[in-house]
């Protein structure tokens, strides 16, 4: 049981690292828009390509061929 004296401080160090990481992510604006990101994962792949592609955006497969 004496291993607790080593393991608990290690756990605390990891906890501090996790908090620091999270605070950094929040500070860099990654959590500023929670609504969009929650929705984006459900949208078509095109949505993520749209923001990165420099060429003409590919059209969604379902559309474009309509009458």
């Amino acid at each position: 049981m004496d291993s607790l004296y080593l393991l608990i401080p290690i756990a605390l160090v990891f906890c501090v690292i996790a908090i620091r990481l999270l605070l950094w992510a929040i500070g860099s604006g990654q959590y500023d828009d929670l609504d969009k990101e929650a929705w984006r994962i459900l949208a078509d792949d095109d949505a993520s390509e749209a923001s990165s592609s420099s060429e003409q955006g590919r059209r969604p497969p379902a559309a474009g061929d309509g009458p």
Partner: protein
Amino acid sequence: MPVATEALALAPPLACYHCGELVPPGVDLRVVIGGTEQPMCCPGCRAVASLIAANGLDNFYRQRTAYSERPQYTEVDTADQFRVYDDARLADTFSSTDTEGLVHASLLLGGMTCAACTWLVEQSMAAIRGVTQALVSLQQARLDIQFDPDQCRLSDIFARLDSLGYRPRPFQTSAARQQSTAEHRTDLRRLAVAGLGMMQVGMFAIALHAGDIQGMEARYQALLRWVSLPVAAFVVYYCARPFFSSAWRHLRQGALVMDLPVALAIGLAFAASTWATFTGTGQVYFDSVVMFTFFLLLARFLERRVRQRQMFAWLDAESSLPGAVNMRRDERWVAVPRIQLRAGDTVLLKPGETVPVDAEVTWGNGAVQEDTFNGEHLPRSVASGDTVYAGTVNVGDALQARVLGDYCDSRLAALQLSVEVAQTKKPRLAQLADRMASWFVGRLLLVTSATAAIWLYLAPEKAFWITLSVLVISCPCALALATPAALTNAANALRARGVIVRGENALESLSKCTHLLLDKTGTLTEGALSIARVVPLEGMDREELLDAAAALQQFSNHPVSRAFASRTAARGFTQGEHRLGAGIEAQRAGVTYRTGSAEFCRELVPAFPDPPDEDLYWIGLCRGDTALAWIGLDDTVRPEAADVIAQARQLGLEVELLTGDSSTQALRLAASLAIETVHRNQTPQQKMARVQALQGTGAVVAMVGDGLNDAPVLSVADASFAVPGATDLARSQADFVISGGDLRKIIETLHKARHCRAVIRQNFTWALGYNICAIPLAAMGYVQPWAAAIGMSLSSLLVVANSLRLNR
């Protein structure tokens, strides 16, 4: 109006596929979206929807969770007005160029209603040649775009956004906007730290609780207590700070708020646990402290997030003015940014444009529509020497005008100022939670001192710990969660039904409201003229007459002509001419046609009869020397209006009509809807005074409105609604924003507000009941720390579960 009701009875009302408003009778516009024909309510919606469908972006309609806003439709080409943003000096205020030569710009988008809008905007921006990155933030309604200036221009981007039905403007960083982002981040940081801290302390606490039951060596117990201490200390110091500061701030003002028992519980439990850790005696409650902090932060974060879903707050009156104006410089007309205008400059006001500044007309005869200020939809004629005001729309011919001053001196700025003043005057109804808190704190302190006194007499060595456990067990977690949990769920449920809740405590205020005040134009009515009656004077049938009139109206952009916009105009009319304040004349096959006022028609047909009655806005139609017809126009009442007013009355509300309109139409409308109290010809200030007078007599007032002129009164009312089509300023002041075109949502919201209040009461009853049962047990010394932690969590969960019922 027999015609309108008849048409309604024949065709069940259809909702516009784009904006969700009811398709007015007689309008037949359709767009094929995803292989199906969908109804549209107006040419504006049709234009936007066809553009979306034509670009293969109709996925937008499948993904969106809220209707889009109804776009403004203008015949004038809007692309030109954005050219000014290509001007380097203006562009520099909201964009920058990086080392690779790419331009980064930030735009504010009006009309963003749901996450699918971000998809639509990002997709269509990426399709523009030269755009390398487009990112939309829904919460800020902001587009960050990066593009190659050699391949596309800023004005292209603006024009594209405009054609999609959004209202792009340069994004100016303001203090309020930055503060809101900073607050959001701080809240998230606190929540994250509290969450991780809760897991850590919880782990140690389980070991400690298990040790309490099974027995554990004292040195391990001491170890676990000592490691819990710094984690809990950090959580209390960093995360729970807002509770302490708010409780202290209110206490200094002599107010007992819910934060006070919260701060007391956190502070005392933490202090006692620290004492126990140092002395190796008693009990520690670190887990309860941290868990409590996390739960409360979570509830408040969610509540705030629901309210901030859509930030109209930064849209002010100034942003509704055009960014570019045509100014006379060196004998030429040049487009310059509006902010560069100085008093004395001469500007050109084209037909259909919003007047950018207060100015005095120097040349031309025209008409301005001033519904911004008075809610009237018929324009005022202006000539040389008359003043036109910023924010009104030029519906006549082009005018030249001399600038009188900059934005700060304008009548519009005065209106905006009165909105800001009104906000500070808004009465704050005491919240149920805070009244409960003051009651609770008093009783709690009484019970605690009694416990301490009795145990000091019975067993002095136990007194301290038992008194503390009373304080900890009474920890008002469920009590503090009761309100935010219910409000969050009610707001979520309303959002799913198309009502966005923005105002703080608006649901509570609405549940107590006694008076419902309604604006007329644009609120009870559709806000636009439509054809109500046709009186043929010479054998031609109705459709033929209307098609001819529509053909004539094509030559004008007077508001009257919009009533005919949805009709297919008869062919063959040429040489159309719009005579201001009179009517329109055109030729077909050598015969002169005229439509307009009686005087204008009598110039051709001296025997033109008088209009049938005074109730409608009548325009005549004649051909050569024959009088053809009288066409009666009216602002159509929303079909559900009568129903809504009847229901509001059933719910015990007094209904009043407040309108800026001076015509007798208001009286007829009130009579047909059975509204007894009508205030006509009201300025925004008078409307405000009326609401304040009612509030002075103890009434709780709900106000429904749409226009810029309603913004001050919306901000002073206890609860306020902005209806579909409301201006940005009105939206930004309203507690509830209704999307889709249905006034019945007011009644739905009212029901939900009352239900929400009932749930809050149940939550309080439960939370207090739990405390009443638990405190005597603690006072008798029967409660272990693990039992306290479980009891607290269970009672909080029950409150949350009860609030979830509001989601249905």
